[in-house]
């Protein structure tokens, strides 16, 4: 009888420990969700910055002309001077049928960050009335 009572106590202690484990596991699982909300401000700032840079790059039809000329190096040079130091970029140009036009990367290196923002910009080249979709990815450098 005495041994049986002791076992009951042990089970309750075990239950309590299990409950501790469940609660802490739940807390651990919610951490990534919290972390994903952590950089919302950065997303807004990067998105606005990217859109602003694309608008300036497209001023007077320069961006459409450079794409028509397939002058990817010039586009990369302009982006690197327009974006602040500390922001890495990767630009991809698609045609009307979603084919990638840039045969080499237009980027400042690897984008390796938790916070990568993708900006989509639709462009019509005024000289030949061709339609392009531009995707600019931005991230803070680590």
């Amino acid at each position, binding site marked *: 009888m005495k041994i049986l009572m002791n076992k009951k*106590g042990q089970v309750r*202690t075990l239950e309590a420990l299990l409950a501790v484990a469940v609660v802490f596991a739940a807390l651990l699982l919610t951490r990534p969700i*919290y972390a994903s909300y*952590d950089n919302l*401000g950065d997303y*807004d700032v990067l998105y606005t910055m990217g859109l602003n840079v694309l608008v300036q790059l497209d001023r007077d039809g320069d961006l459409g002309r450079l794409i028509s000329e397939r002058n990817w190096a010039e586009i990369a040079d302009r982006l690197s*001077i327009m974006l602040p130091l500390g922001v890495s970029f990767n630009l991809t140009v698609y045609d009307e049928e979603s084919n990638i036009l840039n045969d080499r990367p237009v980027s400042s290196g690897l984008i390796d960050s938790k916070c990568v923002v993708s900006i989509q910009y639709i462009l019509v080249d005024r000289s030949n009335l061709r339609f392009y979709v531009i995707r600019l990815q931005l991230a803070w450098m680590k």
Partner: protein
Amino acid sequence: MPVTSLDTLLASSIMICLVLASMASVFAAIQPFLKHQVSHHEVEANLNLAEYLLIEAGMSASWGSNINESLVIFGLANQNSPVPFELNIDKVTRLNEKNIYNLSFLEAFNSLNMKDKPFRIIIKPLFNITVNLASREENDSAITYRFNILAERSNFPVKAALKCYAVIKDYVVSCSSQTSSLGEGLIEFSLPKSLSGTALLIVFAETEPKMLSYTVHRFSHNSINPPSSEGRYALLSPLNYTLRADLNSSNRILHAMAFTYNYVFNLTETEGDSATQYFIIPKILDESIMILVGTGLNASSSECFAEWVSYPQIPLDFGLGFTSKYQLADSFSFRFLVTINSAIYECEVILWGS
């Protein structure tokens, strides 16, 4: 006490501790999240306000060029501009405290109609240029100068094409060069020994179309006296394509010129009195900032003097300082690229958070 009671007591204590610990943990985990939700919206609201300052023309829309029109709503954009972030040259110029027509921060702050939102606007070229004298060689008729030029952006070198003008009185000499991938360049020019006094070296550097920077270096030519200090003879203030010169002495400006990356123009004097002169500034379609230079002769020393101003009057820093630790921790800074007269500049808008 029976063992069962002890076990139950132990288990209950653990459960109570567990509940308390979980409550504390959940509070600790959620509290910054809730706070962040507020701050996320705060970032978005401040970002929208910063954009508003740069894409709205304000009221009246021509408050920049017309000083008689009162400012009701603050905004820096060009009226009816087809593209966003195109700023008005005169509105920007009036933010510079050195301009005689400058707008006070209180006027701008009141016209924003947001009593809890002090702000600061910094507009500057995308990169910097530094000039240093490398050597000076003198012969019978002229002095040859060599200057080292350094183009950099946050201490990183910038490769750029250089266009330089040296000015003394009405004599102008131009030269071109470029900076290497290390950001370094060298220019060389000669000035005649028939002239003496303060000379100006104007350097424009262009990395890409529309993206340029400038510097103006004041130096003494053929004289033992140091170059005259800025504003000693006249204070130059451009507005609405008119250059106003407020004279600080009896010496008048005899020659006025406008320099851009590609062009040089003489300015025509329109009106004036003993203390003020006015010159018409041409509307040049060059994708460049304009450097306006006024030169003359000091009647007592017979040496040349030179005064200059840029149009738009950039770089500028307008608004509150935000220098204390508390202000720095509670402010939002947003960077934009803006266009003024076809040239691109960097604009930073800083808003106080609370």
